[in-house]
């Protein structure tokens, strides 16, 4: 392993590869800073372009994007209260109040250190766990996959929105979409209306480009104006004290990183949940939780360290099981397959050096992104001042070209456009899109896992609590369902006690 790691490092540090890495970092920053674009879109656009590239170049670029998006997203979250990416939303909570008080530079400084430190923590964890990948893979059979998929859908539906019911509705729509196409268990074709295009099901990448990028641009065109409503806070002083603050609050960094890595590793749960949980655990552990939300720097550090740590966590199920840990990873999976790497048990053995290269690219890119982000912060923020009527057509055209170029299927354009409208309607009527995407990704896994389990056990339900892994998963599902009822119960209980006392 050490020699391969060194070789990978040497490969990554070759001038050519570095250019791709830096290119990825810049793309990641730009896409991160523009709300609605984010890493998923950047990777989706990049995917067809990586085709002619060497594996290491493609990985350097993808790693550069994934490591840098968080930084970009947090810059607009802090300066403009408009999270550039979904996981950066948690950074708004205390980051923007800091900006309002004139501490914007300090907040961005904290991001610039917390982000790569979280990333580094995640990478070290990933390197430790890699040798066990095979054992981890064999822990998951059809019953476990079913339970993991259910857990992912439930968790996201429960936490993606303040309105659980809407989250579940969106998850339900995603499940329906995932049923389209060839049923690999029974061989029937469902909802394909005789078209060869739908035979393969709803393709993920065009769906993602539609639901996020297109939807956001439709909103921008309809509402008019610029992405950023208020650009008054684009002044930068006191970066250094922010940089130092992260080291002063090292406990917060570690807690955030652990949360990020763990939650990132659960397929389909992803970054947004990770950053919000990191934020709330830090808040709950603090002596003065009520002061959060008014500009506490810990409230920036915690979600930021989780934001980059989650990428490493998310890589594990993506590589080992071929199950994406996040929407971003789903697109990354496409890049892997495009370069002839079939995710699965053999990938670590067959492509060890490439994977180390990718892991290193993730680390370097987080550091690079901080440096570049700090020096270009004014220009990046200027993108959010571009008028919608100029930005929207460019972004829409570029995304559709990207979608078509991937498989040369005109149907992909129609699908992206259709889901763009659906995505806009969901934005407009305040339905979370994440559960839909997660359900679309995990629906097939859930269905297949369930049916195969039933075939293996010959109809015995006991198979779902047959192994320690599945028992743990069942408990987690029950807990995450129960979690959302805790505040309600507490309120009822309090009301009951008050009622009894009077």
């Amino acid at each position: 392993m050490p020699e391969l790691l060194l070789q990978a490092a040497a490969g990554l540090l070759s001038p050519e590869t570095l250019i791709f890495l830096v290119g990825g970092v810049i793309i990641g920053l730009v896409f991160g800073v523009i709300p609605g674009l984010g890493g998923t879109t950047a990777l989706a656009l990049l995917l067809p372009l990586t085709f002619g590239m060497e594996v290491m170049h493609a990985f350097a670029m993808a790693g550069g994007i994934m490591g840098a998006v968080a930084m970009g997203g947090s810059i607009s979250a802090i300066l403009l209260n408009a999270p550039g990416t979904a996981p950066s939303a948690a950074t708004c909570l205390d980051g923007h109040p800091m900006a309002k008080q004139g501490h914007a530079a300090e907040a961005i400084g904290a991001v610039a250190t917390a982000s790569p430190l979280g990333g580094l923590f995640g990478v070290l964890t990933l390197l430790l766990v890699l040798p066990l990948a095979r054992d981890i893979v064999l822990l998951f059979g059809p019953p476990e996959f079913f339970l993991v998929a259910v857990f992912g859908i439930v968790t996201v539906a429960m936490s993606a929105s303040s309105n659980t019911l809407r989250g579940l509705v969106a998850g339900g729509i995603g499940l329906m979409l995932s049923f389209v196409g060839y049923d690999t268990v029974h061989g029937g074709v469902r909802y394909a209306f005789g078209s060869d295009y739908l035979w393969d099901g709803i393709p993920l990448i065009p769906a993602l480009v539609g639901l996020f990028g297109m939807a956001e641009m439709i909103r921008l065109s309809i509402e008019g104006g610029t992405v950023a409503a208020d650009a008054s806070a684009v002044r930068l002083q006191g970066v250094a004290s922010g940089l130092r603050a992260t080291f002063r609050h090292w406990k917060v960094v570690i807690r955030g990183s652990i949360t990020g890595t763990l939650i990132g590793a659960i397929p389909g749960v992803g970054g947004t949940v990770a950053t919000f949980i990191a934020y709330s655990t830090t808040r709950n552990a603090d002596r003065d939780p009520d002061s959060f939300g008014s500009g506490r720097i810990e409230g920036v550090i915690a979600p930021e360290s989780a934001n980059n740590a989650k990428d490493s966590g998310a890589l594990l199920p993506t590589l080992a099981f071929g199950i994406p840990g996040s929407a971003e990873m789903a697109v990354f999976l496409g890049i892997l397959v495009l370069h002839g790497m079939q995710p699965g048990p053999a990938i670590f053995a067959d492509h060890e050096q490439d994977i180390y290269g990718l892991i290193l690219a993730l680390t370097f890119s987080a550091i690079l992104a901080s440096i570049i982000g700090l020096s270009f912060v004014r220009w990046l923020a200027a993108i959010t001042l571009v008028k919608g009527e100029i930005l929207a057509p460019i972004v829409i055209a570029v995304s559709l070209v990207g979608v078509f170029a991937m498989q040369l299927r005109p149907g992909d354009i129609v699908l992206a456009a259709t889901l763009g409208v659906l995505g806009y309607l969901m934005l407009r009527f305040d339905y979370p899109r994440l559960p839909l995407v997660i359900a679309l990704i995990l629906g097939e896994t859930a269905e297949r896992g369930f049916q195969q389990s039933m075939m293996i056990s010959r109809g015995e339900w006991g198979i779902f609590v047959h192994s320690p892994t599945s028992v743990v998963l069942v408990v987690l599902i029950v807990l995450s369902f129960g979690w959302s009822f805790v505040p309600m119960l507490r309120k009822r209980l309090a009301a009951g006690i008050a009622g009894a006392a009077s």
Partner: protein
Amino acid sequence: MRVGVRTLSIAALLSIGACSEPAGYPNKDITIVIPFNSGGGFDTYVRALAPGLERHLPNAINVLPKNLPGAGGRRGASEIFRSKPDGYTIGIFNMPGVLIPQLQNIPTSYELSQVTWLGTLGYDPYIYAVRGDSPLKSIEDVSELQRSVTYGATGPGSTSYVATNIVNERLGIPYEIITGYTGSSGYLLGLVRGDFDAALLSQSVARSYLESGDIRALAIFGSESSDPDVADADDLGAPELGQLRVVRMMGAPPDLPEDIRIMLEEALLASMQDQEFRVWLETTGNDVHPAGAAETEAAVSEMTQFYDQFKQLLD
């Protein structure tokens, strides 16, 4: 420039039967359609072969692989079938993957009996495999089991599913198939994990797991066995099961002019003899079994007959 190219290819089209000179063919790039994503067995094979084809065809043109994945290979097959028969679009067919839907009467926009066959690159035999620590040591052990044997496969109608059905029906083994695994690596993992007793795997997929001892071969179909512990179709008294293999065949749209067909066939056969390609085969552990157009055409009709007699097992 483009206009000139087009005029020339129209001239080539008009010359069918009348003139034997292929009007300077080839004078533009040739596309090889691959019905799968890049990186798979079919894709790497074509990519390794393309430079040789360029060398063995007259004129300095490029041979460009084009991946058209989808619908289990049917999208690629349709694309080849519907292209102009001018020799500039050829492609690779996964057999019997694209044959089975045709026999199942699934509407397809191609008809394999009308394809202009150019040759065969090679084939991948099926391995009857069990887990490394399985008590089953031979096919006899399997048929003496007092219960039905469980297998893993991808979806109904897939080549692995059909092959599993045919083997067990022919050998009279009671069986059940757990379907729905994603690709051959999916049910290979299921076999290693112990989800079921046995599986039919293509040799190229099984190779590294056979070497590591995770799985063990009890029989091989589609090729003669070189290992005394591994039975082949003849040993099992069912020689027709030798038809069970995945074959990579090259073809062109129907009615390809004969002179162009001959040029492509010869270039294909010649490039498979290239030193460079041979080295690639050896380093990657790929097999090559070159066959010409006539042999390929015969193999297609033989294969069609074979699967046709098991028609009731295809769905």
